[in-house]
């Protein structure tokens, strides 16, 4: 383990923050305050936490349709994030994006996208830009097991490899794409197996263990900053809830669900942090209370914010020419 105590605290905080945020979202959704659909990040918190903890503020992430966790972990303003989910004018996208497009560019989020796998080429382009601008920025690109079957996956791995771009492909393999188990759609079961064909080093980690994710990411970031090119990290993880809003996820075998529920990302990193003397039980509680307050405040802010005026639908189609 090459993580110091400060890092363990950081990992705990990020993991827990995402957890609390998503629980609040689930709660608000239950109160019918969130329009449309939702893809909760509950269960996968360690991935976003581990990856973003290894990045600088000036580094980038590319998110997906399951994006709340990525954005919050990267340091999003939670008020603006929550308000966006509720479709409020104060949301980071002024209510135009919602859950599937929750994006805060100023903390390094390139975007959240509703089209599965469509963020991968964009991440590659941002990495190309970092390289051409000699900015020494790194891009972490999140996507799912299902996304790995889309054409842009191979195209993007290849382009990143030939140009040795500073991009890290983070596969969140939660074993399902909606209701489709990975065993029906991926012959190798490991997405990582596909990286070698493009000469990209890959590794498979426990995606419920923020420390493991962090350590793998640190290595990949180092490689990227040295100009050695892309890496792929496959994080095995699991959704605590269904795919989306109304999915009871009955298609998952109970033993499988049970197994993964026992691997709670927050508990795992908490245990590590305590065992390594980075935190005491009491300190973890203090952190939890503080974060809970932040999240509650964000929900409050969102609820109290106004909806955009209808005619605002006509704004923002184009950036103004100056």
């Amino acid at each position, binding site marked *: 383990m090459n993580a110091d105590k400060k890092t363990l605290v950081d990992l705990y905080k990020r993991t827990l923050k995402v957890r609390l945020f998503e629980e609040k979202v689930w709660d608000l959704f239950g109160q019918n305050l969130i*329009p*449309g*659909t939702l893809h909760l990040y509950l269960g996968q918190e360690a991935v976003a936490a581990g990856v973003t903890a290894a990045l600088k503020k000036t580094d980038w992430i590319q998110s997906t349709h399951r994006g709340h966790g990525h954005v919050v972990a990267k340091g999003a303003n939670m008020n603006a994030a929550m308000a966006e989910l509720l*479709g*409020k004018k104060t*949301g980071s*996208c002024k*209510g*135009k*994006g*919602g859950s*599937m*497009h929750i994006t805060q560019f100023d903390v390094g989020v390139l975007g959240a*996208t*509703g*089209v*599965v*796998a469509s963020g991968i080429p964009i991440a590659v382009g941002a990495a190309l830009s970092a390289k051409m601008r000699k900015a020494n920025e790194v891009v972490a690109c999140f996507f799912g097991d*299902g*996304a790995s*079957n*889309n*054409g842009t996956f191979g195209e993007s791995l290849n382009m990143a490899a030939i140009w040795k771009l500073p991009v890290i492909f983070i596969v969140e393999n939660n074993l399902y*794409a*909606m*209701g*489709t*188990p990975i065993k*029906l*759609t*991926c012959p190798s079961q490991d997405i990582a197996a596909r990286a070698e064909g493009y000469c990209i080093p890959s590794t498979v980690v426990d995606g419920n263990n923020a420390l493991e994710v962090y350590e793998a990411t640190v290595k990949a970031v180092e490689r990227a900053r040295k100009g050695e090119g892309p890496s792929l990290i496959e994080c095995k993880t699991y959704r605590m809830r269904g795919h989306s809003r109304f999915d009871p996820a009955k*298609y998952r075998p109970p033993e499988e669900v049970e197994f993964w529920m026992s691997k709670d990302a927050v508990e795992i990193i908490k245990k590590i942090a305590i065992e390594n003397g980075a935190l005491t039980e009491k300190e973890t509680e203090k952190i939890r209370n503080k974060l809970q307050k932040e999240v509650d405040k964000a929900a409050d802010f969102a609820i109290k914010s106004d*909806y*955009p*005026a*209808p*005619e*605002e*639908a*006509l704004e923002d*189609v184009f950036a103004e020419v100056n």
Partner: protein
Amino acid sequence: MPEMTYREALKQGLREEMQRDERVFLMGEDIGLNWGGAFKVTKGLAEEFGVERVRDTPISENTIVGAAVGAAITGLRPVAEIMFGDLITLAMDQVCNQAAKMHYMFGGQRSVPMVIRTVFGGGKNIASHHSQSLEAWFMHTPGLKIAVPAFAYDVKGLIKTAIRDPNPVMFFEHKLVYDKKEEVPEEEYLIPFGEAKIRREGADVTVWGTFIMVHKSLEVAEELAKEGISVEVIDPRTLAPLDKKTLIESVKKTGRLVVVSEETKTGAVTAEIAAMVQEEAFDWLDAPVKRVNAPDTPVPFSPPLENFFIPDKERIARAIREIV
């Protein structure tokens, strides 16, 4: 005759064709056992016909359509589903360059009997990537037939015709019609392509619209009738082939036309209809053909924004009043 939802009627049509012809099979993402389609249209069919004929696929839109093409030209009758119409952007090559052109560019050697089902439209607050209406792209692609059923009765008859057609058929649905109910015969019936339906007769103005806009137009017609304005409402049912005759005849009778769709205005199907009617019935028009469409923006998420985006009854009524 039993009442059933559009969803049920569509499923019934698929079921009948699968029973009738073992070459018919369905493929798409999450259409099978575990989900039954994002809008539950195929729910139960995998149980009934097996997972080979109701085939879950990886998230590979272009290859789903391409595989359907390959299956179609070698003797099967695939019905490929693209989960949301917005995602057909990923399959445009296989739809528009391969499926649509193959019969022509190979000089008629082989027909391409396949159906691509997908769903358009807003109203569910799921934002820019899951709410578009892209019919116009396909109407501008020679070699494709296009069905746009808005009613439960039609969807059953049209899906059956689509499956039996030897050409690629784009079968477009709309998120908000699935729950609409209507009396639907249990026995078999087919609805020919290229026959519009006059849903309401009227004398003062013709309204031509698609999907939810047909339903809204009918309600508007009802309301305007009270003010003494007599509105004829036409539902094209298929865009390719397009029933020009029924529309032109109606316009020759009423002298006025409003065209309505949920598409963004510029370059929409409604533009084609307006252009065609003024070209073919200029002397009968007493007023310009009025278009009612969504504004030229992506589809926004937040309810007040999306409600503003989607044409409502008031806008339809206003357009009618402007020309009568």
